């Protein structure tokens, strides 16, 4: 596999709602600077933002890595959290373990992972209870972008 054209790491702090979304915003601006198609940028930005919010809310913080390759744009969200005990349930729209406090700021509706799945061509989730979660997301470039 060839080296990525660009790789950028963003560090996410747990419960830092003041800066939550900044990483996704910076990633979005980077993609716009590269001149990617608006729809591609929007899909990556939404996936990045949902992943970032998951790390802020559930994952005790972590790292979001953006890679631009020839064939696809990849995001890897690696958190320090408790892991997902029932992944099948977590992928269902409407299922959430978020607190009322989180719901008051507009999240915790159980749409995070389903939203990510909706935006990307590939979604891989590795999780172990007590050992954190790694979410890998890819949006294809070129003719099979959609």
């Amino acid at each position: 596999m060839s080296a990525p054209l660009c790789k950028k790491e963003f560090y996410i702090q747990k419960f830092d709602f003041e800066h939550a979304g900044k990483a996704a915003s910076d990633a979005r601006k980077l993609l716009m600077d590269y001149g990617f198609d608006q729809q591609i940028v929007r899909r990556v930005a939404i996936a990045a933002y949902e992943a970032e919010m998951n790390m802020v809310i559930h994952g005790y913080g972590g790292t979001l890595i953006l890679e631009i390759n020839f064939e696809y744009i990849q995001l890897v969200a690696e958190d320090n959290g408790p892991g997902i005990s029932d992944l099948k349930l977590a992928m269902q729209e409407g299922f959430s373990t978020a607190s009322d406090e989180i719901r008051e700021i507009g999240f915790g509706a159980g749409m995070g992972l389903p939203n990510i799945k909706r935006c990307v061509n590939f979604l891989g989730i590795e999780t172990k209870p007590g050992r954190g979660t790694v979410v890998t997301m890819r949006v294809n470039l070129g003719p099979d972008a959609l």
Partner: protein
Amino acid sequence: MNLYDVASKLDATILTPKLDLSRQVYCAYGADLLSDVLAFTRPSTLLLSGLINIQVVRTAEMAELGGIVVVRGKPVHHSLQELACACKIPLLWTELTMFESCGRLYQSGIKPCIKDAGCDCHVCPSV
């Protein structure tokens, strides 16, 4: 309808006067659930919300929305206005309720946020 017209219809105050409000909006979405906004809106959608935290602007930025109307007269902190300006997301404020705001806009021809016929892209919502 452009955002000046929206402000007029909703008796709204423009909180980001330096931004371009001549941009057109054709559809709107009323919600306090931001993941729903990310899932079911299209670029240039006008968002009506009772949320006043910075995540409402971040959500609008990621989803490339046309603007935000803060409804039911909720107090908007200066930091929200600053972030909206920085993200180029027009911010309006009205004392009207969500229901009446949506009603006035619908009556004026603004459409719900639904998928275009024949569009099979991943971005347009399927509702």
